[in-house]
């Protein structure tokens, strides 16, 4: 193909060249002279090009054979085009592969915590919510009743389809409510926390001697298993599966996301222990995705982690999404199963061994312009929204989001943070009319479109609200999603295949590699305001049910 184009270009060039030569031959001068001189010139150029190309290749081969070619330094003769245009890497990026992701977009919002101080949050109620676990039957078996006393780590419920996976209480205290949602499904099991935390006794486990099966049973028994998510579909990992690889992203590039270096501070031992355990669970590797964007080196907990493969990712959001990182390291094919975990989930698993208890402690970011003081707080999984935001602003017409503004879930004031979320974002509701708002907006708003002057001020921070800025339309623009997703995937065509229920196409176009958070940025940027995350989830659900 490439060769063909070269030949064609050469032919055209030659034909025109010959044309002008023959044209000249009708005039004065010796025509054959021109022709021969030009032929020699062309031959000389080709010869030099061949020599250069061969030497370039030889240098690369040599570097590969010596094993010094680590993909970071260019050993060829010519600079790569990407090298010239891509951003300079910070000095601390070393050890492991570096991936440069060009596509995507960082949405900069006001309301990030200013320092790294972590306060203790005064939260009294916590909840474990069955809907947080994708694929769980809507009415799991709740083993506690209202009024029961539980310890942190005691089982609250389990899925009747997979009874071996235990879902345990994040804190100790009294079960004060089992709330139901639509069709009598269990929405949340609420626990009122004791003043003093009491932990369920955990038998020690010898990681050296214990077998993998024993380890799995151990993790299942003490509730740590629910920390592990399995792709495709983002379900809680299947105990019978040995994953191809395990992936952990150590940074979150979503808007207002917590800085994991802050989160992990002082908990390095548990994190490393967690990694050791995960290593035992997979035949493949445990991959750690590190941030190559920041000027500051990531926490040593990450850079010095042992027994893992480190990969650096440079580029805008969604470079921190584990799905994107998987795609570039060892992508998921049909039939593959890989596991993913968040940093704090790894710590909880590790703490089971280092502290001998189920410690669901979470550092949570409270972010958003609507808060008086955005900050980091220390609490436990599933903390109550009202308690978290107490005395931190007067909330009128705002939306509480468990997670970030792109892929988070909206919560009422009495709601609880989701199981896997370590971020609470508060944004203003945007239920206002705006005169000619689509053409002449009155105030700045985040946008990836260059019809707004935003692209001239890349460091400008915005205040966003939940106004949809337009109505839903048919798919019109093309190439927009692709530019927001640094993966070899065509999201728009995938979405269309999901809408028409074309299973073969869905699989072919890579539905297994995606989860909602990966297409969230595409959904944000979508001119037609299409609900991509919803469409994708429907597709994933259909595929899961098909098996």
């Amino acid at each position, binding site marked *: 193909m490439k060769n063909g184009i070269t030949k064609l270009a050469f032919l*055209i060039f030659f034909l025109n060249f010959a044309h002008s030569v023959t044209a000249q031959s009708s005039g004065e001068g010796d025509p054959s002279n021109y022709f021969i001189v030009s032929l020699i010139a062309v031959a000389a150029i080709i010869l030099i090009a061949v020599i250069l190309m061969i030497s370039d290749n030889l240098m690369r081969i040599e570097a590969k054979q010596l094993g010094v070619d680590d993909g970071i330094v260019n050993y060829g003769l010519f600079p790569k085009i990407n090298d010239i245009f891509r951003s300079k890497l910070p000095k601390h990026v070393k050890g492991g592969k570096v991936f440069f992701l060009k596509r995507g977009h960082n949405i900069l919002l006001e309301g990030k915590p200013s320092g790294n101080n972590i306060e203790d949050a005064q939260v009294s109620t916590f909840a474990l919510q069955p809907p947080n676990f994708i694929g769980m039957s809507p009415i799991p078996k709740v083993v506690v009743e209202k009024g029961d006393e539980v310890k942190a780590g005691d089982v609250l419920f389990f899925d009747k389809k997979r009874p071996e996976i235990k879902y345990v209480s994040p804190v100790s205290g009294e079960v004060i409510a089992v709330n139901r949602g639509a069709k009598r499904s269990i929405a949340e099991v609420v626990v009122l926390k004791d003043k003093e935390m009491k932990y369920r006794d955990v038998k020690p486990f010898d990681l050296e001697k214990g077998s993998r099966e024993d380890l799995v049973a151990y993790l299942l028994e003490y509730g740590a298993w629910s920390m592990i998510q399995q792709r495709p579909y983002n379900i809680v990992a299947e105990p019978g599966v040995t994953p191809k690889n395990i992936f952990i992203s150590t940074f979150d590039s979503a808007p207002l996301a917590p800085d994991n270096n802050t989160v992990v501070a002082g908990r390095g031992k548990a994190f490393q222990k967690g990694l050791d355990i995960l290593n035992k669970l997979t035949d493949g590797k445990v991959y750690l995705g590190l941030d190559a964007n920041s000027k500051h080196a990531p926490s040593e907990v990450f850079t010095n982690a042992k027994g893992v493969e480190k990969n650096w990712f440079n580029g805008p959001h969604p470079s921190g999404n584990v799905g994107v990182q998987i795609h570039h390291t060892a992508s998921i094919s049909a039939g*593959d199963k890989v596991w993913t975990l968040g940093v704090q989930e790894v710590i909880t698993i590790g703490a089971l061994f280092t502290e001998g208890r189920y410690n669901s402690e979470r550092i949570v970011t409270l972010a958003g312009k609507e808060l008086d003081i955005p900050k980091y707080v220390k609490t436990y999984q599933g903390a109550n929204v009202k308690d978290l935001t107490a005395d931190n602003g007067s909330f009128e017409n705002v939306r509480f989001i468990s997670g970030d503004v792109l892929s988070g879930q909206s919560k009422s004031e009495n709601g609880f943070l989701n199981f896997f979320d370590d971020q609470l974002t508060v944004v203003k509701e*945007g239920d206002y009319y*705006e*005169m000619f*708002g*689509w053409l002449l*907006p009155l105030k700045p708003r985040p946008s990836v479109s260059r019809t707004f002057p935003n692209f001239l001020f890349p460091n400008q921070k915005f205040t966003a609200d939940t106004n949809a800025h337009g109505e839903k339309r048919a798919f019109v623009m093309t190439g927009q999603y692709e530019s927001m997703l640094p993966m070899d995937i065509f999201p728009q065509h995938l979405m269309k295949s999901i809408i028409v229920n074309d299973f073969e196409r869905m699989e072919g176009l890579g539905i297994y590699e995606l989860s909602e958070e990966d297409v969230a940025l595409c959904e944000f940027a979508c001119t*037609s305001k299409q609900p991509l995350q919803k469409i994708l989830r429907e597709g994933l659900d259909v595929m899961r049910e098909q098996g």
Partner: protein
Amino acid sequence: MGLLNFLKKIEPDKEKSPMLHTVYDGFFTFAYAPNTVTKGGVHIRDGMDLKRTMVMVVIALQLCYLFGTYNIGHQHFVALGQHTSFFSAIHLKIAYGLIKIIPLFVISNLVGLGIEFFYAAKRGHAIEEGYLVSGALIPLIMPPDLPIWILILSIAFAVIIGKEAFGGTGMNILNIALLARVFVFFAYPTTISGDSVWVSGIAEGVSNYGWWHMGFFNGIFEAFGWTLFESGASVIDSFSGATPLSLAKAGWDNVLLHYSESEMLWGAIPGSIGETCKPFILVGALMLIVTGIASWRIMFSMFFGAVVCSLLLNAWGANPFMEVPWFYQFYMGSFFFAMAFMATDPVTAASTDRGKWIYGFLIGFIGMIVRVLNPAYPEGWMLAILLLNVFAPLIDHYVLEGNVKRRLKRAKVAETT
């Protein structure tokens, strides 16, 4: 807020009068961005929507409108041998152009939007903005003297058969504006081909003005003491009205006998209303590229395809038209207009990046073949774009197949290692 309250008060009932409500909704959302908030999925949305996208294209077209209006008048007076210098009698030329273009524009939008409103109401959808651009494009690609009833028929055909039959905005296979033009082209060929249709008001050989010229504008101009419209002037003998493209059949020198290079570049030549002024079109194209609304890939590869094809034709050189130097091919005809505004329609173009390169290249290549090698059609872009519109899904299909195959291969490699 007073206006908002008033508008909310007069909102028709959706159940009782769906048609009225659709129309109301169309205009209301135009005046006010609605107060809908995100629900499920993302919580914040980009400030960009389809209205803004479409209006950006309309804005990019404004220079073409400006020049097109003036050029209608200019060509008219050149044919009569009056005010032949480009900047003389500016007021007459603008007035003449406006009298021609306003009906075209108004009718185009009335008919097209009317049909859109009707189908939107019937389907219970909100009005989609696709026709905003088509409605602005259609007058620019028609000859100035096109009878209004033909315009109405062509638009009705394009919108109903080309778009609504396929499900409305975003679903059409063929470019609506070009479909309207191709309808005129095949149904009423005498109104859109030949040498005499590209200059306004010379069909009878004598200038014959109506009330707007003689009554309205002459009245104003008289008050200022400016030159006036005068009926009864006849077309000068040496004037043919032939476009550069039809002259080029006899070679580039023949074109230069009638038009200078700068006239062709700046667009003071007969042609469809909006297609002649290359610099202004390129300003619009640049705006679309900078704002990211139109695909630079399509524009670039279409240009490249046309260059390659004309180079090949140059090398072949079997007749005088083929020997027109490749860069002069771009001085003639509507290449840039088609490149900037027609080929880049996101709905009908290829939708993958690689597909866009192929799509653009083939349009450029095939369009140039039609232009030069086919004696029946003096310009090729309309047909080339419509042809590739039909093939765009096929191109995409192969690009997607490539993606699927890559994924399968990766899976196999992973299995063996």
